[in-house]
């Protein structure tokens, strides 16, 4: 543009020249040179300006993505425990794919690959490679570097690798149920991995670019988690049970320090979770928990001032409710105080207490402790409780000792934590709380009731007649309550198939942690004196767990408790 204007000016100057004087010619010659120089200078300046502009704004990239059509995978933040120990991370692995159009000898490829990857589906691979219209066929994703090298060494044309991120779980099956799984594209499908996708956030990437996010911090302590899993595995062998579950909960903050369910699952093998035996018994299934519910019943009676701990209750006559007759396993033959009903785990006593309080107050108390409504945690919704449709006399009596109502162990543990922590609401969480987070949880029950519950739970372990006496741990004051619940089967309750459980708290002088242990269908072995009662198997297991995790949680054993 500059140039064309200049030519026009030059043309005008040339046209004027013949008519002008000689002096004017020189003048106009200089003028022309000046104009030409100016024009060239401007042109050069424009070029220089453009160069500077290009040099400064070199943000444009000429690298084009060759992989856009293949689809994206996800870069995930690491998962660490409450002390920063690694539980899940992304690592780069090679994935093998083929371009059928470039494969020369199909049979050779299939045969040679089958030697290195023996469990490959040969028929499917042959079919995929025959389709010349396809330019991309996954053969195997997430190969180890060694495998990738061996395949590379075959030198087969048409095969190529693409680096991808795969999830690695260095702890193996440790805390498998909490962690959950990811799919082949590294996207979270269950458990905490899914929470990461939905809340923490993942980055969609091509290739193997690691996420730059800070790790997600669980509330779990893997030392405690391992101790619980190990003790439960020992208990399963010792008492011949089919399964076991255990929870360690901080009763003030609701942080879950350990959540174990055996048989366990390996987070790296999603298909394991399909086995119904391996379901997460802590959060994903509900059970009739049995006598541990008497903690709630007694608390309800105390809270509503129906009785005090010393009130005497006549438990000699069996209770009848509809077609059921409720008896005690070991009838006392004399009236018992409320504390003794708890310690001797009297079904009749619990039933009488619930009847005295009435349907309205029983139901209201369950509701207040959030035992009737579904709740949710970071690892997904907790299995919804199964509660009676109507609260007749039968339901009042059976729920008082934990039958006719089924809740997930984690939900029950958080309700029990409320009864122990002075009455504040507890929301179970799998994410570490900030240490300075203000505790603004609403009060659900009176602190006096909580104090009474602590007293009788401690007595249940220290009293020689207590059902929980085998949970005693030297060094830590422990309190707890046993539960032996019959498992419902076709046409009534199964004979001798029980869930035995023990809900413990320690240190009892100022409870901080709750330990809930469940053993599924234990058999009467020599160790348990041929009995399937919780006091014989679940209680000592809880004791072993507390003895082991106490030091890990930074609690110093006390000689006072050792002496007692």
């Amino acid at each position: 543009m500059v140039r064309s204007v200049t030519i026009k000016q030059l043309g005008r100057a040339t046209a004027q020249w013949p008519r002008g004087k000689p002096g004017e010619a020189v003048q106009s010659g200089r003028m022309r040179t000046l104009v030409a120089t100016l024009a060239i200078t401007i042109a050069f300046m424009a070029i220089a300006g453009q160069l500077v502009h290009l040099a400064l704004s070199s943000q444009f990239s000429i690298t084009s993505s060759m992989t856009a059509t293949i689809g994206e995978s996800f870069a995930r933040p690491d998962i660490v425990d409450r002390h920063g120990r690694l539980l899940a991370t992304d690592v780069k692995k090679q994935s093998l794919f083929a371009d059928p159009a470039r494969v020369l000898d199909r049979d050779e490829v299939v045969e040679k690959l089958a030697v290195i990857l023996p469990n490959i589906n040969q028929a499917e691979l042959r079919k995929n490679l025959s389709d010349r219209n396809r330019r991309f066929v996954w053969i195997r994703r997430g190969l180890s570097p060694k495998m990738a090298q061996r395949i590379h060494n075959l030198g087969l044309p048409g095969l190529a690798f693409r680096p991808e991120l795969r999830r690695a779980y260095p702890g193996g099956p440790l805390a498998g149920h909490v962690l959950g799984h990811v799919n082949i594209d590294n996207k979270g499908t269950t458990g905490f991995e899914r929470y990461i996708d939905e809340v923490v956030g993942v980055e969609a990437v091509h290739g193997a670019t690691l996420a730059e996010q800070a790790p997600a911090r669980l509330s779990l302590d893997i030392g405690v988690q391992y101790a619980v899993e190990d003790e439960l595995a020992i208990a399963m062998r010792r008492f011949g049970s089919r399964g076991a579950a255990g929870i360690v909960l901080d009763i003030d903050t609701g942080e879950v320090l350990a959540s174990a369910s055996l048989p366990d699952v390996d987070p790296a093998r999603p298909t394991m979770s399909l086995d119904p035996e391996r379901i997460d018994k802590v959060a994903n299934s509900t059970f009739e928990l049995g006598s541990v519910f008497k903690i709630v019943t007694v608390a309800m009676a105390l809270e509503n001032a129906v009785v005090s701990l010393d009130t005497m209750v006549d438990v000699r006559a069996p209770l009848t409710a509809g077609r059921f007759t409720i008896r005690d396993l070991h009838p006392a033959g004399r009236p018992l105080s409320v504390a003794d009903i708890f310690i001797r785990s009297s079904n009749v006593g619990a039933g009488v207490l619930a009847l005295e309080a009435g349907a309205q107050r029983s139901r209201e108390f369950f509701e207040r402790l959030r035992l009737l409504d579904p709740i949710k945690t970071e690892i997904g919704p907790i299995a919804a409780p199964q509660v009676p449709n109507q609260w007749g006399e039968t339901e009042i009596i059976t729920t008082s000792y934990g039958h006719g109502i089924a809740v997930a162990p984690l939900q029950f543990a958080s309700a029990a934590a409320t009864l122990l922590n002075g009455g504040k609401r507890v929301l179970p969480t799998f994410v570490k709380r900030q240490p300075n987070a203000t505790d603004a949880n609403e009060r659900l029950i009176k602190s006096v009731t909580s104090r009474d519950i602590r007293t009788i739970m401690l007595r249940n372990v220290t009293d020689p007649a207590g059902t929980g006496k085998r949970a005693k741990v030297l060094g830590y004051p422990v309190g707890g309550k046993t539960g032996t619940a019959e498992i419902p089967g076709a046409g009534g309750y199964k004979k001798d198939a029980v869930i035995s459980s023990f809900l413990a708290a320690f240190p009892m002088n100022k409870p901080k942690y709750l330990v809930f242990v469940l053993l599924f269908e234990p058999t009467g072995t020599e160790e348990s004196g041929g009995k399937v009662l919780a006091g014989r198997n679940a209680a000592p297991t809880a004791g072993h767990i507390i003895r082991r995790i106490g030091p890990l949680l930074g609690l110093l054993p006390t000689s006072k408790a050792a002496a007692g």
Partner: protein
Amino acid sequence: MRLHILAALALALASAFALYGINYDTRQLERRMLAKERAIKKARNDIAVLKAERAHLARPDRIESLARAQGLRPATERQLFAGPDEAMADVFSTAAPRSARTSRAE
């Protein structure tokens, strides 16, 4: 006048060479930057693998068996003579340590 033209020509040539030089340098720098970026990415991937391997070696079931082979056990009340308050009182008191300590602690 001629001087002007010569000067302009020289300037044009000089700037052309300078431009070429800068262009060349820029490419060099870009190449080095890409190499560095690749090295960083590789290092980060290696760190991720090493972190995973370290965590695998430090997993509790392995540490436990190693610790037990060393003769270590969980802390118990038997290792304590007294509660923390008593123990501290003991430390601060000028009296000689109680002889019972050794017998109790085995």
